[in-house]
């Protein structure tokens, strides 16, 4: 089993775990963490893709690395924005501060259409 395959499988596992967490966790903070795991899996996949350039005798393909760096910045800003919104929600509604243990009705995913 080559290194590329191992990393590819790791990427698939991270994506799978992230998707599972994002779908099943009711708490917003856990969803944000799951999103980061999912994103890491995708970035790892980009790394694997870049590594394939080595097989073509190019050393390493630099484009996926550039894409990953951009992607990391985007994911970082997304996380920062989500956390900022969540913190504001904690500040503005006192009830939400207890939502980790108490009523699930305070979660954003419970807001009805």
């Amino acid at each position: 089993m080559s290194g590329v395959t191992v990393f590819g499988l790791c990427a698939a596992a991270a994506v799978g775990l992230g998707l599972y967490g994002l779908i099943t966790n009711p708490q917003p903070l856990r969803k944000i963490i799951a999103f980061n795991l999912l994103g890491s899996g995708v970035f790892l996949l980009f790394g694997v893709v870049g590594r394939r350039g080595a097989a073509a005798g190019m050393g390493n393909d630099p484009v996926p690395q550039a894409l990953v760096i951009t992607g990391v910045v985007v994911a970082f800003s997304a996380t920062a924005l989500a956390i900022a919104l969540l913190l504001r929600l904690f500040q503005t509604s006192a009830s939400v501060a207890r939502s980790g243990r108490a009523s699930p009705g305070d979660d954003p995913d419970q807001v009805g259409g």
Partner: protein
Amino acid sequence: MLPPAPALDAATTPSGFLLVLSIAIPIAGVLLAFVLGDRYVRLVAFAMVPLELAITVTIVAAVPHSTGPLVYLLGAWPPPLGVALRVDGLAAVMLAATAVVISAVAVYAGAEFSVTTTKARAPFVFWILLLAVWAALNAIFVGGDLFTLYVALELLTFAAVPLVSLDGRPETLRAAIRYLLFALLGSVLYLLGTALLYGLHATLDIVLLSHRIGAEPASLVAAALMTSGLLAKTALFPLHLWLPPAHAGAPAAGSAILSGLVVKGSFFIIVRLWFQVMPGLPGFAATQLLAALGAAAIVFGSVLALRQERLKLLIAYSTLAQIGYLFLMFPLAFNGSGHLESGGALAGGLLQAASHATAKAAMFMAAGSIYAGLGHDRITGLGGIARVLPLSVLAFAFAGIALIGVQPSGASLAKDLLLQAATERQQWWWAVVLQAGGVFTAAYVLLVLAHALAPPDKPVVLTGPAPRLGDVAALVLALCSLLLGLVPWEPYLPVPYISPPDLSGLGTLSKSLLPVLGGVVLAILLSPRPHPFASSVRWKVAIGMLNRFRRGCCAFSSYVERGNGVLCEWPAASTCLLMLALLFSVLMLVAA
């Protein structure tokens, strides 16, 4: 060896630098606003909006004179090494629609978000986000590379999400978090697709990729992942859990941008992906699935819109239905040789997008004026509003008429184009859906107008002054949408010849009257609230018969509402997203 880039992109076209300016000017405005601070932010925005409008006009005017699309190669590097910006006819139409809507919203918001009237940070943030949304949308329309589109899409989401929670109330913050998280799930799927495509073809440039892509299983899976990710951001049924709370909770000017423009960003990328990157790959079944989701969105959105008690929620659900309408073009563009053809159906879809952008923004602005005037927006409490706020109601009515597809509105031309395509492709079932969509639209527009024109129970007292300038902006926008059918579209869109609108003919009259009459019937049948005829003695026999039928319809619509409640749960919606990705992959693999 990589094949050489097509000659088309070998160099920047003469007016190509305008494409960079169209993105750079709003971003410069954002930075300048941060430097100058609260007091000058509105001034900066008012300086940037005309400048950007002028750039857009220049670009749109330059497109017909250019032989191919306008191209700018960043750093003069041709793809696949560099990144190209391109504007073709489709992009020009969307750029123009965006510029018109944002300018009107800026005029409308001029009074609401002037810094002196409120102490909060909302005005400062609003103007910055307005410019940021504009930059992100322009980047989506001119971006010629799937990864550039990803970054632009994320910028758009980051600019749109805070618009939802401008007033900082807990429920809008919840709506914003939910919107952000679901959008992030969608964009990760899109990014996963881009990674797979890059791994296979070593380029993400749209033109290059369209030459290299074939029916490899991995390409099809990537396309399915990207499509479903983008559908989540466009809020196509059943992935709409975030849209109604987000669009109804935002301030009116924000809702106008979110509903009119932001959902069109991801829609436009789907169009690029299906029509330009892989026109030969999706296959018949996948296009049918996409339009079937659209048809379901029309039924769900319209039925739910008729059951809403608040005007802004009604408009938000109407957006849900209209998004469904946009996806009806995909099967109609599918020609005999198994390709998605950039013909009349594509033109119809894009026109529908542009006319919905203008009309829906006008509707939200009018609803905002009504909310500001009355202090509430309960539909049953709208009686007499037409006398005190005539301009707002007129703007709403014009926008509604434009959406229903009365000639010469853009929606009517779009409907003609799509119907023509349905006849050519012999897919009569989509013609039925198209007509039903118009009837449903008429139903909820007429429901609101009937309440607004009804005599008041008690004299209407306005809580605030009527925003004259804002109403005029909404009215102009609604008129734009109403007159879009008269614009010569040939230089931009592949419009086949359609007989010019004949405004006096009997056929035209019946074509406009039928949806309206159907709409009246639907509004009476599906709205759970008492209708104006219920107490009339003259129609007693008819009402008695009607009521029996109506009870059945109400049961149906309450089932729809319950089903919607289930679909709007997070686990259900995100599972739907994954199922759709799976379904699209399977359908495309079978077709290949």
